[in-house]
């Protein structure tokens, strides 16, 4: 892949990752949120593939393939099954209302641009300029975990964070080594499975997957 089209493709891929993250804050339906997450996984994989093809780096292409399977298909599938179980599968009343969290998302993005200057200066490539997008995605992930009530939304937040970090890694360093990526992926997968088990138990106990219910355990 050559100059301008490489840059455009990379921009579109990285941009799509961020837009998916923002859109997860927009939608209330958990199923839609998980589908957005899947889309984000695909976009992330596309970034890896584009980078890999550009650098003629077989490993990176391999990582891209792994990411597609894991983040684009496997994780969303697991989450969708959790969602399907939950009777009220909507994020009805997040701690911060939707317009405010959208504005906060915008602010976080701008903040990421403001603070990512040094990193961008370190990596003076086309990819390096896009690092703030990954940073913003990660920040949005943390924000989502902080303000959303549903267990699934929390996991989605975690995965947003993970995807953001992965995007920064791809863009800044040309990606983790394959082993690290595989290890991290397995970790996340394990975590999601654990969360799912926990969620199932929560569901059996309280009937909904609302983390505020956990407070009752404390009493």
């Amino acid at each position, binding site marked *: 892949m050559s100059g*301008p089209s490489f*840059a*455009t493709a990379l*921009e*579109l891929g990285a*941009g799509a990752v*961020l*837009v998916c993250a*923002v*859109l997860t804050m*927009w939608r209330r339906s958990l199923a839609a949120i998980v589908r957005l997450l899947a889309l984000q996984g695909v976009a992330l994989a596309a970034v890896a593939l584009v980078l890999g093809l550009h650098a003629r780096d077989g490993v990176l292409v391999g990582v891209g393939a792994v990411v597609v399977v894991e983040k684009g298909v496997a994780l969303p599938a697991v989450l969708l099954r959790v969602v399907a179980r939950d009777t009220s599968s909507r994020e009805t009343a997040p701690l911060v209302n*939707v*317009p*405010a969290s*959208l*504005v906060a*998302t*915008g602010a976080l*993005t*701008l903040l990421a*641009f403001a603070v990512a200057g040094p990193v961008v200066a370190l990596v003076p490539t086309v990819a390096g*300029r*896009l690092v*703030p*997008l990954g940073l*913003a995605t990660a920040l949005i992930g943390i924000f989502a975990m902080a303000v959303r009530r549903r267990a699934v939304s929390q996991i989605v937040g975690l995965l947003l964070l993970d995807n953001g970090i992965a995007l920064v890694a791809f863009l800044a360093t040309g990606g983790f080594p394959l082993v690290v990526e595989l290890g991290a992926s397995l970790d996340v997968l394990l975590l999601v499975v654990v969360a799912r088990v926990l969620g199932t138990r929560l569901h059996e106990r309280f009937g909904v997957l609302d983390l505020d219910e956990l407070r009752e355990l404390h009493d």
Partner: protein
Amino acid sequence: MSALVRLGAAACVAVVQVLLVAGGGLLLLGVMRKTRSRCEGRVGPPVRQPLLDVVKLVSKQRIRPAAASPVFVAGPVVVAATAVLVTAVAPLVTSDPPLARSTDFFAVVLVLLLGSVSLALAALDTATPFGGMGASRATTIGALTEPALLAVVLALSVPARTSNLPALVREGIVDPRVVASPGRILALCAFLVVIVAETGRLPVDNPQTHLELTMIHEAMVLEYSGPDLALVTVGESARLALLLGIFVNLAVPWGVAPGRGAAELAVGSAVLVAKVAIAGIAIATFEVFTAKLRLFRLPEVLAGAFVLALLGVASTLVTR
């Protein structure tokens, strides 16, 4: 002499655009209604029905509610006049419209705002509960649409280094990569949401509702009749056509005439009509599958558009 010729050409362009948008806007409404009917399995009224309605309205008697003042009469005139003014100078058929240098996107937005404001004032002037209700709701939506729209203007203007509307359209023709840039795409997505909100389409407002309590825009114009109602209808449909025209020319700038020649104008008009019709059909099809949102869910939609446009600006910070 040549100055006179140029002036004539400019006037021609303005007249062509105004006639196209005023008449075409009504037909666009007809096309959208037809699309909706067909999707729902009905035959629906003919495409030219809105045009016939307006022709009928023009010859009817004018009725003024007892409490109304001249503001009530001025409302439709200002709505139509702002739409006509912007249409005359917007890059619709050609990217070299009259007064091209002064067709500023920011100014366009605020001129159209003048129309919305005057209609809201006219509605309050009727002294009816429905007028107040419509004005209150429409102004609230407007207050939230305005920021999104200005953010869109910003997102489009930053990479182009100007907020001049014809320049924005020309930029897309000269360099197709601009059209595919993430900033432009995000901004245009937000613009589409804004157009839907601004022109009162689903899911923001149901243009076909006949229940006073759910009306927004229709509640504002409930008291108008005869030629005044015709003006409102023409003005509002022209706004829809105009905004969609600007949208399609920014999203798909190809086919916009580069100059003011007669042949160019003919081709440009045909392409514009086709593009806007496609956009209208797409929106109408989308409307079939959407329900009207609750009023208090609207901030979510508009905040979404606002943030999308801001992301568009942010992405231009990256790619510059």
